[in-house]
């Protein structure tokens, strides 16, 4: 199973982020087992939004099927105000 460890690579330059931008439960989030791109998307979105806090049973998303994960992502997007930039192509 791929892990999240490779997702955020150290970089040089830029500016320091304020502490409020970091999750206090980042270590837990890093341990979540990821089995698909959808899982990765969910966990990355959580990593970027410290105020949105959830836990995963047994640190695993495997118990959920794809429609359930999509519903979870839709609820997260809705809560965070994330919307598509453009209308989908016809």
């Amino acid at each position, binding site marked *: 199973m791929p892990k999240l460890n490779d997702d955020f690579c150290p970089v040089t330059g830029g500016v320091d982020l304020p502490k409020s931008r970091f999750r206090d439960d980042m270590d837990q989030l890093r341990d979540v087992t990821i089995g698909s791109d959808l899982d990765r998307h969910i966990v990355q979105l959580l990593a970027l939004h410290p105020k*949105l806090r*959830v836990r995963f*049973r*047994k640190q695993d*998303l495997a*118990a*959920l099927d794809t429609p*359930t994960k999509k519903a979870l992502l839709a609820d997260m997007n809705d*809560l965070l105000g994330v919307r598509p930039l453009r209308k989908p192509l016809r």
Partner: protein
Amino acid sequence: MISVDRALAFARQHYPAGPEKLAEHLGVRVTFSPMSGCDGWCLFCEDRAVIRINNQFVKSRQRFTLAHELGHLLLDIPTVIGESFSDILRSNDDEERRVNEVAAELLIPQNIVKAVVSELPVVAAVLKRLAKQSHVSELAAALRIANLAAELGLEKASVVFFEGDTVSWQRSQTLRMADDTAINLRDAAREAAPNAFRHIRKHKGDVIVASLIENPFFGSATLFVQLLPVKYGQQKSRDEQRAELEQYLFDGQVSFQRQLQGCFGAFKPRAVGMSVSEAEDAFWERYEQRFSGIPKKRLTSQKGREYVRLRLEEWCGHFHAETHDDARPSS
């Protein structure tokens, strides 16, 4: 966000629709959809929240999930994605326990439990009545009573859940028993149904009382076990008295039973606001001549009059509006 105390007070005001009204009051968007591996979740961020409930289960289970997720929101404890109903009930995690306490109070406020459980022992009919009145499962009602054991005057209480013939789990803050003991109690309670099974322990001066609610559709059963002082453990509950009297009155007389139920149904609106003795006088004046033969003989016997009085007490504000102080020990 509203404080927990205010939220609970709000839910009490809107009982039995406390959780639904609270979600509406807080502006929480509640969505119902099919899900797998999960009963629901609550996501919150700053002052916004969304709750999603798995609608593939029965209504009472969905209500429990809603109350549980509201508990996460009120206590500011992150939801656990992938949690199922049995995970929620079985969890020993301190945060989940606190969330469950809030959820239980939202669904069945303590004042309601005390009003419904107005005498001891707690029998299956009381669990069913509390569940029906609160729109929750009998299992949730049993757990609520077990968690309020001390407040209700029960020495100890436990809920054991069976799937098929095996003990799936048991939940109690005061009483643990071996699986074999639970299975023996279940078998004894099944035999004693609709009455509760009683076992007096002379050396300890208490009585074990076990009531069983079976759900043949799901092949599951809920066993409610309580420990009571002998005085309270031995007394027959009103439901047991009623069942016994019905057995005597209606034995093989279905049409008589229906006719009498019809009389009670028609008389009920008149009885509201009357004292029990006023209602009794009015009932006999109105219905005594309606019956003849064996039904009349049985109905006008001492047991028949006792039965009518028992039924009228249910509506005349005598019984359910207040607790019978002598029916259970003071907590």
